[in-house]
């Protein structure tokens, strides 16, 4: 799949409230291209609810329903049931939430919808923080990262959402990243073609939240994958397949890059480099990534 084969159609309309360099709108564009116009989206409180822009206008040319922070998957379940009762089973129902709305506050509704077998796609764009309310830590924030609620750097590791999702044994789950639009597109199209609950998580580096300059969003995504801080994989009926560079890292065909290559460009990790390099905490991050990859290899090689 080459870039030129991706559809021209746009359901994200320019001139929204998103910050310049926003990873969420990048992901939305690809999502709309992959799923097409016959899609309904349920959006809880998060940046995306703001990116929709102000009443009486919206930047999304797709029916979108806003709902309470914790209720994305519950809302999607209701919309899916309503459509089913009307015989409109060809409409793709999407819940679209941030990592705060997914890892933390919406996890109960999400788990419930997956367990009930709701026919929908749950998409989490993961910017590793609660960005809409001004950068607070979430269960997805990595160890060592500054947020307004982890001033000296987060002291815990991020939650392994992928494993929590896999414990539901749903027909399809995948991790992708805004820097790999073709990978993202392929996974979304595949999810659309499968009945039952699907989960897709998109790594979404956020310039104001991570404190990097706005032209670097794609680079930060690429480096997340190349350093192994993020993995591209998909899970089809419990079979896990790694994709792209992540596959090569898994099979040890390439070495993952040192984590410094990624974090030194992000102001949220600046305290690990200035005034003095915090070798110990950088090594803690590095060791944790190694541990995760060893676990991946043990299970999936």
């Amino acid at each position, binding site marked *: 799949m080459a870039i030129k084969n991706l559809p021209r159609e746009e359901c994200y309309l320019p*001139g929204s409230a998103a910050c310049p*360099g926003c990873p969420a709108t990048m992901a939305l*564009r690809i999502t709309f291209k992959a799923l097409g116009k016959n899609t309904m989206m349920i959006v809880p409180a998060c940046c995306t609810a703001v990116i929709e822009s*102000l009443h009486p206008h*919206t*930047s999304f040319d797709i029916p979108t329903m806003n709902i309470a922070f914790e209720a994305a998957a519950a809302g999607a379940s209701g919309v899916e049931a309503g459509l089913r009762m009307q015989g409109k089973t060809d409409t793709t129902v999407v819940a679209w939430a941030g990592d705060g709305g997914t890892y933390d506050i919406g996890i109960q509704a999400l788990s419930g919808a997956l367990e009930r077998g709701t026919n929908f796609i749950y998409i989490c764009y993961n910017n590793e923080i609660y960005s809409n309310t001004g950068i607070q830590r979430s269960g997805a924030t990595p160890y060592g990262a500054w947020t307004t609620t982890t001033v000296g750097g987060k002291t815990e590791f991020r939650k392994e959402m992928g494993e929590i999702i896999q414990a539901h044994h749903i027909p399809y789950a995948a991790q992708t990243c805004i820097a790999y639009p073709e990978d993202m597109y392929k996974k979304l199209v595949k999810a659309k073609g499968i009945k039952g609950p699907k989960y897709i998580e998109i790594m979404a580096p956020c310039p104001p939240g991570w404190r990097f300059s706005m*032209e670097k969003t794609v680079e930060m995504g690429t480096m997340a994958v190349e350093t192994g801080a993020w993995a591209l994989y998909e899970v089809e009926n419990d079979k896990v397949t790694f994709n792209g560079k992540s596959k090569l890292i898994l099979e040890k065909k390439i070495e993952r890059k040192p984590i410094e290559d990624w974090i030194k460009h992000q102001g949220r990790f600046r305290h690990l480099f200035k005034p003095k390099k915090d070798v110990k905490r950088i090594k803690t991050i590095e060791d944790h990534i190694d541990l995760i990859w060893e676990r991946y290899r043990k299970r999936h090689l």
Partner: protein
Amino acid sequence: MKKYDVVTTISYPKKGAMGKTGTWRVFRPILDKVKCVKCLRCWIYCPEATVIRNKDDTVDIDYEYCKGCGICANVCKVKAITMEREGKKK
């Protein structure tokens, strides 16, 4: 466009729902069509959908809404896009 008569708050799709976001720009992407190899990386990565993909896969920039993030310039492998400060005297 079809309007719905229901008792809830409904917004309707509109380009420029937050106004002309081109005014947010500090740096302006300038495209050199001679250098461009039509790879479409700028088009697919532009967060604002303001890199216009023409029929023949050449690209143009929609300055009315482009927010000047510089991603298009950064992802272009042949450096066909450069960022110039707005209002710079020639």
